């Protein structure tokens, strides 16, 4: 006390104010905003007589502009179609989409704001969705229909993915390459960072069906020269170049440089090749000739338009809803996620609550989006064992397996990675 009394009045005031404030902080900290609540309070939040409001938080701007712009665009397109048909039980569907600008705090803030005003979230896509997961966790009656990136999102009971993908990988395509082309030695380049964990799961799946890893290197996002990697893979007799954990730009560079070095392994495969702008990254499309890709969705860029009417609907409504929108993978997921949500909303009855929507989603044990997807048990979060294989031929995407339509299934064809 004597020490305090020696302080100047200003110092004492400052210290006193600080103490009071800390105490106040403690009191206010125990206020209404604390602790997880189990429900929103109003069971019909986001649902009125006229409309159902749905939220979406995606990374649209930020360091990589337009990264997941397709995510809200696809939902908007499907909602436009449903609204044109009269809505669901007489209610129009309205999407409020927020951009997290690839920022953790922004994702949490946007999720928090929307959670109090929407009936559900549909097709949110962000590298930082884990930051909003804590906000979602406060609500037990708030459905989230999305392919979450972070495990905190996907493991949430109220998360329903139209195409569940637990840790691991489908193996059907790998078996096809092995049996058809006799390939065994994998060469791979993968992105350091977030892509690495899924790459490891895929390599484990490849090894589970008899492949050997001949060469692999994790690369930084800034790398642009892979000639030394190509020389090394050539020397290691790599016959299967697997490039699933890189972005389309890196894929294009590797393909161009492999072509320049006249190195052509028996099989090159990459799921990221199926993109409307991929060929624009290659000044010479022949660099990608013969490249395989496998997918659990129909060829939504238009190749399956004749056999899967939903593909035509998707492309037409994307154009109608927003002529500038690009029908990419994330837009396709937006479309099928919105389909899944509407199916649940219809099943939830004439006067649904948020909990009714969650319950209805929990009843959907088979969903294939009218042929847009290969089909999966949404409620049980079971992955699909069915897939299609496509290939680049003469600068176009062509179906290889099944040749005409649909998907081919490989019972037990999903390798579950337990992390061991």
């Amino acid at each position, binding site marked *: 006390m004597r020490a305090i009394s020696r302080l100047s009045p*200003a110092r004492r005031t400052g210290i006193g104010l600080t103490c009071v*404030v800390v105490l106040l*902080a403690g009191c206010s*900290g125990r206020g209404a905003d604390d602790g997880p609540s189990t429900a929103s309070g109003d069971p019909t939040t986001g649902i009125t007589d006229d409309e159902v409001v749905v939220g979406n938080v995606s990374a649209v701007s930020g*360091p990589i502009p337009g990264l997941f712009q397709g995510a809200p665009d696809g939902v908007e397109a499907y909602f436009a179609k449903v609204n044109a048909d009269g809505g669901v039980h007489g209610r129009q569907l309205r999407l409020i989409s927020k951009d997290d600008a690839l920022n*953790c705090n922004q994702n949490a803030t946007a999720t928090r704001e929307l959670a109090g005003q929407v009936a559900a979230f549909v097709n949110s896509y962000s590298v930082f969705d884990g930051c909003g997961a804590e906000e979602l966790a406060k609500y037990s009656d708030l459905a989230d229909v999305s392919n979450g990136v972070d495990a905190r999102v996907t493991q949430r009971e109220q998360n329903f993915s139209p195409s569940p993908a637990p840790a691991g990988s489908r193996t059907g395509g790998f078996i096809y390459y092995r049996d058809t082309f006799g390939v065994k030695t994998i060469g791979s380049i993968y992105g350091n960072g977030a892509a690495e964990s899924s790459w490891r799961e895929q390599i484990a799946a490849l090894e589970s069906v008899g492949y050997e890893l001949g060469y692999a*290197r994790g690369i930084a996002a800034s790398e642009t*020269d892979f000639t030394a990697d190509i020389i090394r893979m050539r020397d290691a007799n790599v016959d299967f170049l697997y490039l699933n954990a890189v972005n389309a730009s890196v894929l294009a560079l590797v393909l161009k440089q492999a072509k320049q070095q006249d190195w052509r392994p028996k099989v090159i495969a990459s799921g990221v090749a199926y993109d409307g702008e991929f060929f624009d990254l290659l000044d010479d499309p022949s660099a990608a000739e013969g490249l395989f890709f496998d997918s659990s969705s129909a060829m939504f860029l238009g190749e399956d338009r004749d056999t899967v009417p939903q593909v035509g609907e998707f492309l037409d409504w994307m154009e109608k809803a927003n002529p500038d929108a690009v029908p990419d993978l994330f837009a396709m997921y937006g479309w099928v996620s919105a389909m899944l949500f509407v199916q649940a909303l219809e099943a939830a009855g004439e006067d649904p609550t948020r909990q009714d929507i969650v319950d209805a989603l929990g009843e959907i044990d088979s969903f294939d989006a009218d042929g847009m997807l290969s089909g999966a048990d949404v409620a049980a979060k079971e992955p699909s064992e069915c897939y299609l294989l496509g290939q680049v031929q003469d600068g176009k995407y062509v179906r290889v397996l099944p040749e005409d339509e649909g998907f081919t299934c490989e019972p037990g064809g999903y390798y579950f990675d337990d992390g061991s």
Partner: protein
Amino acid sequence: MDTFLSLTVVGIVAGCIYALTAAGLVVTYTTSGIFNFAHGAIGMISAFAFWDLSQNRGWPVPIALVLVVFVLAPLIGMFVERVLIRGLQGAALDASLTVTVGLLLLLIGLAAAIWDPATARTLPQFFSGNSVSIGGVVVTWHQLTVVLVAVAVAAGLRLFMFNTRPGIATRAVVDDRDLAALAGATPGHFSQLGWGLGAMLAAVAGILLAPLVNLDINTLTLLVINGYAAAMVGRLRNLPLTFAGGVALGLIEAYAVGYLPVGNALSQIKPIIPMVFLVVALLVLPQGQLRGRMASIRPPRVAGARESLVMGGVFVAVAVLLSLVLSEGLLATFSLGLGFGLVMLSLVLLTGYGGQVSLCQLTFAGLGAYAMSKYGTDGAPIGLLAAVGLAGAVGALVALPALRLRGLYLALSTLAFAYAMESAFFNNDDAFSLSLSLPVDRLYIPGIDLRGQRAYFVFLAVVFVIAAVSVLWVRRSGLGRRLVAMGDSPAASATMGMSLTRTKLVVFTLSAGLAGLGGALLGGQQGLVGPADFTLLASITLLLITVTMGIRTVTGVLFAGIALAFGPDIQASFPALHDIVPIGVGLGAIGIARNPNGLFGGNTPLQWLRERRARDADAARNGAALPAPRDSQEVPVAAGQ
């Protein structure tokens, strides 16, 4: 042997690319004494302009090439020199760095506004379809052109700088501007010539490199970073040595990829090789005398103990009021701003007072968040201690090799550290979790629940005040005076018997520890941290905004933190402003050329009025004008280079 030969060819081609990007940097530095962080951005803009003319508008390639390389690029360079650089003569390093980084952001924003970044574009190689096989490697004629141009540039510029009258005069202007002017040279003219030439070389590099990578704004802008290492081998002056440095770097990378074992951490070493090379070049090669001179700026007034405590108390009281009226979303963003403010306070000590420019403060913050995540489960206070301890210890380790470096060399060594940590630590799932994100719990204080946003905001305000008051106390202490002396003139400080080594070590450790504390509390605010939070670019942006707002004052730092936190918010709320935000930040940073203390770095209007009134009263009492107060006198400050 075949593999070795192949890898050698690959390394030489890559090395020539580095040498070419470094050549323009060297020319600009040699002719103006300014390290141009926007060099890559000028190359990027030129490559896009060339694409626009030759591919988009269908102009003949030779005409587009001549127009971009010999007209547009030199004009950009000369304009930049005239408008921005000339005012920086003799400025402190943090100011010149901020201006060129601001220019970089401005050019990135302009490019994004003109050419939609989401659209894929390619630029065909020159002599497309023609190639030769050398040592088992197919080399295109375009790549051979890059090699030849790199050699020609290194040799030609060496001749120009040392064997021609304009070249010698240009170097003379940089060595001593006044003396050169007395000898009849026109300094502005030669400086402008140098920047025009540098921009022209940036354009050549950008146009030649774009077909080898993708025509992407960020890729082309940042490609030049690897060239820093090559430029440093030539000590930013010697072009042939720069060329040799580039080739050596290319060869080391090629051999590393070619021979290091697969499947372990060594196979991922390539991205950090240029940074290790840069640090080794900085430490091993003899320390050339970097350019720079004494600058005259008015350091801001330092608040006294009583004033800082009262203002701190008022600030916390305002924070309490705000916590009662603002929404949780706004409070979350303000809290983030306070967290950034804590990290920025660490820059006040290191850069604002000590004159040591660091480009890795968010790396220390990341280490703090990491320690809090690992050891502060459920908010255990030991986590906070670990955060400060780990960041402080690493700060001291970084300072050890940096003790013999100063100015730009020191800044580049911190850049290398930040880049290496980004690649090897933050993007490594052995350090971070598999999803490359770490949950960070909020501090637990018995009896005080900080889980709520309102409580955490007030808590952060209190911590910020304590840290700010402490920083101001340090400034008034003996250590603070030593720091300012070191920042003003290291040579004079050493002459007076001051231990620069000890002072640097202490300030690096304190600063890193404070950044670690900020990182741990920032992590608690977000709940989750990931590599994107602690990138080199984020650290540079943090420094840029801090300098722009005022790196020498607590007020400046507070506004800088809030501005940084609200940036994404504004961007997300007003999508139409997406491209305008970096342009605005760039322009703000460029404003440093006119106001080196930053927007909030000078005296506040209240302080100015109070001093003016006191002076007037004294003058009236004494019947004569008093000399200007001490803080308005011109105080020489070393350029820090």
